[in-house]
């Protein structure tokens, strides 16, 4: 289904009242992974608000992203257990290594960086989830290796794909 049709469907679940604005934006992001220019315009139209105001709100909150997530969305757990075990240091290490801030995507579209709450596997904290894989007991030291491995995997995948 086209993006605008999907958004239309999601918006059907809301009354165009101001108090529903944040929940509606959250629902769209949940479904599509990010809020595109078109999505913000549609929301503005639906709520009868100026697009500039929607943009102001979307950029105000850290939870919203305006770029599509990368091929490997990195989710660093900052739940209590992971946080206490140094989850924030792991997040910093990813941020340094990928040279992006939380919420952003690398220029080549390979990685995006996000923090989340508890994955439910606190016994192996601190935890990072990339694609559907859980990386237990992460340390800042392991970050570089994880990234290199994924980049290598991308390269071999691409080569296999390119061969006739």
């Amino acid at each position: 289904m086209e993006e605008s049709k999907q958004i239309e469907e999601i918006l059907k679940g809301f009354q165009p009242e101001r108090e529903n604005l944040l929940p509606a934006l959250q629902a769209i992001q949940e479904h599509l992974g990010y809020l595109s220019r078109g999505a913000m315009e549609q929301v503005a139209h639906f709520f009868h608000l100026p697009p500039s105001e929607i943009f102001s709100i979307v950029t105000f909150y850290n939870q919203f992203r305006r770029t599509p997530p990368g091929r490997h969305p990195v989710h660093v757990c900052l739940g209590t257990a992971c946080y206490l075990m140094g989850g924030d240091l792991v997040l910093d290490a990813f941020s340094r290594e990928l040279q992006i801030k939380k919420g952003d995507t690398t220029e080549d579209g390979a990685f995006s960086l996000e923090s989340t709450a508890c994955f439910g596997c606190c016994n192996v904290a601190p935890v990072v989830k990339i694609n559907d894989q859980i990386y237990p007991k992460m340390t800042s030291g392991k970050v570089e290796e994880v990234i290199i491995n994924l980049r290598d995997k991308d390269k071999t995948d691409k080569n296999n794909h390119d061969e006739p």
Partner: protein
Amino acid sequence: MVNGFLNQSREKLEVVDQETPMPSLIIDGKEITADPGEKLLWVALRTGFYIPHLCAMKGIELPFGGCRLCLVEVDIGGRREVVPACSEPVREQMKVYTNTEKIARLRRTAFELIMSDHHIDCKNCAKRKTCELIKISSSLKWSLRPKKLRSLVRDLPIDSSHPLFTFDPMKCVKCSKCILVCQRLGHSFLDFAYRGFEMILTTFDHQPLSSLSCESCSECVNVCPTGALFHKKPGESEDG
């Protein structure tokens, strides 16, 4: 929406008018009569007391109150507090102190904050003759350049796409006046984005000014107190 709101509050004011007497208050020892509901800042200014102000706008019911330059001390029933004069309505028996040592210190810090990310380049600035920052700094005998705070001017793109005016975000003091006039005219092309130190004035998704269906009324340029929004010189189309 804002206009409807204003009319409504004006009606309310008239009703109040018939019943309540004009409040009298004391500004720096002088007795003054004001209109009920009038904001302290405008009363003080029209009765000869200078209070610096950057973001206040007459006729806006809910001022933005972001610049903090208009802080004054008020004393109501023995309780003394610091309030922004632009959003404080006058009250009967209110004592106002516009120029205490505390106020001077707070205002100076507010001004330093504003100037700390301002690209000070008055020589080449289109608004140097009307600039409010210069007026404020010279009437209070302050330097434009912050003394205590480090200057941190961000490197932001200038938008000179519009045929009539240019926007230079490095001169923007985030007073919100342009946002409010554009909103009052029913367009709302401008708004703030991001927050904290990263806050900027911008358009929807940073679209260039020329791509909006802006009617070129130039009201935003006229209210802008600094060189952030300025008219292009005649004959100058691209690049200000």
